[in-house]
């Protein structure tokens, strides 16, 4: 359609369309920070209750990402490397959590893990309470976010050629040595991206927590006072004090998330020099 148009026109149009989306991403955040102001941010930072909820969110999301890597990377590897019966079904199941509304995730998990439900009773007997505890938060985060680790791991392992692994084997590496010294490091950048996406998804979750882990009581890994996740804290604040009192806390949470995101991106750029030009350089 635009083949006959001058290059300047095509580039201008492409630039405007792209800039409009980038603007959509950035402008709400700018509005949030302007509305909150530096004073508001400082006030939110001095709020002990909110600081505790951020601390709790970072702890639970860290545990969830760890478990996501522990389980998601082997699954991603299996999907990338092996042909097995039911492989396409497993691939589809991995995508399920992305498609299900997260309030529904909370309800479904509640059916399984409520203190009176069989799995809930089993977890309690093992000293791992789920309902209204850090276990429930981790479980929801794992459910809604681990798909990203599996998908990016699968993609990353697919990019490691058979030849690379076979060369390692013929050079003397056992299958596990070839995995640890060649496949895993070669795929590390993709896996890190998946971990970052999972973490971001977990921190931004609300619906699942409202049902399964609304008010967190101490125990089973959380030794602080009763709290909520930061996202639920902001949700509650909005319901009680309205917009003016909420934006400061929301802006502070965004600031913490951005700091972590940029930190990982810096590690990504400095630690993966070999992969320049690949993935998200």
């Amino acid at each position, binding site marked *: 359609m635009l083949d006959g148009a001058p290059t300047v026109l095509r580039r201008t149009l492409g630039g405007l369309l792209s800039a409009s989306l980038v603007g959509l991403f950035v402008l709400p955040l700018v509005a949030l920070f302007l509305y909150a102001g530096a004073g508001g941010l400082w006030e939110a930072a001095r709020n002990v209750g909110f600081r505790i909820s951020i601390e709790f969110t970072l702890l639970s999301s860290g545990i969830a990402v760890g478990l996501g890597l522990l389980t998601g990377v082997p699954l991603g590897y299996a999907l990338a490397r092996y042909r097995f019966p039911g492989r396409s079904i497993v691939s589809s199941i991995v995508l399920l959590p992305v498609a299900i509304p997260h309030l529904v995730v909370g309800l479904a998990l509640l059916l399984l893990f409520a203190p009176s439900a069989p799995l809930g009773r089993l977890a309690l007997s093992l000293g791992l309470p789920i309902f209204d505890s850090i276990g429930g938060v981790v479980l929801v985060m794992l459910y809604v976010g681990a798909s990203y680790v599996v998908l990016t791991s699968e993609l990353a392992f697919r990019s490691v050629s058979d*030849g690379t692994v076979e*060369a390692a*084997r013929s*050079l003397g590496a056992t299958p596990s040595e070839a995995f640890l010294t060649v496949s895993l490091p070669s795929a*590390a950048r993709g896996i890190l991206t998946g971990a970052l996406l999972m973490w971001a998804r977990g921190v931004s979750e609300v619906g699942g927590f409202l049902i399964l882990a609304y008010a967190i009581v101490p125990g089973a890994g959380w030794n602080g006072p009763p709290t909520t996740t930061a996202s639920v804290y902001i949700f509650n604040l909005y319901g009680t004090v309205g917009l003016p009192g909420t934006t400061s806390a929301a802006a502070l949470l965004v600031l913490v998330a951005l700091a972590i995101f940029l930190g990982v991106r810096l590690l990504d750029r400095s630690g993966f020099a070999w992969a320049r030009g690949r993935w998200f350089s």
Partner: protein
Amino acid sequence: MVLLTALEVRDLEAVHGSFRLGPIRLDAGGGEATVVLGPSGAGKTTLLRAIAGFLPLRSGTIRLDGRAIERLPPERRGLGFVPPDLGLFPHLRVRANVRYPLDLQGHPDRARRAATWLERFGLGRLEARYPAELSSGERQRVAMARALAAEPRVLLWDEPLAALDVESRDELLRLLRTVLEAERIPLLLVTHDPAVAFGLASRLVVLEGGRARFDGPPEGLAAGRLDRFAARFLGYENLYSLAELEAAHDAGLAPRLLAAAGSEGIVVPADAVRWTGATDGGPRAEVAAVRWTAGGWVVAFRDGSLTVRSGPSRDPPGVRVGDRVALRVEPEGWKPLGDAR
């Protein structure tokens, strides 16, 4: 000189999907290069992967220095294997790539030995680079250095030097031959490229449809019974089947070629084709194309329904497309294909 056979493959059969390979018999030993030549789909890669241990055998034996290795995992076979994509580790610098097998072995002198191999392949100044920062030729040299650093008993190489220009390829072939002869490491290489095969092979195996069509010294391919398959690999241009000759039997060169043809037809080497002005005697042909190639001028003639190409010549051919000429082929130049009729 008697060269000891390091690798002995006997009655090897393997299945990859619907493709069936073998039975194959193969030897590699001394500082020799055994080259398996064949078109795409002939089973070259299947053969090499089966020997390297990445594809289970259906039957047969593989012996290395007399020891049966067909049931051993790849890492315990003592064979170096370079895959078609070279398999360089993208996250490791050149130095670490070459050191990799030595690190696995826990070699006490790994740093010095890796440095020696790097120098030997002219990689000293590139040792701090990542594979993605290297040219195709440099990557090939890293793959060679790394494979040899593992001190394999035999080096297996799948389609090497594929993405290289002729000059770089010849330079690397010379380097590889020198190092392998010095280290007395036999090479088993598979390729579809006759130039690589004839540039390196001390023993040639021609593979087609999963079976060996020829096994012997490379010069034996031209000396023995010539068929269409072998003629294509020997680079002959003018191959005519009996059907083609019979269809053109009443025109130009065809009657004489048909009379001399074997059961699979005849080949007329391009350098045996001569032509003179149209007023001279002999069959008439029309110049169909005149083009410059890296080897020189090549002329294609239309002789009835046959196309006859001349060999490359540095001298300008002195004819233009559409000219009529008298075409001649010296009888001692043509070669019957297949058995005598």
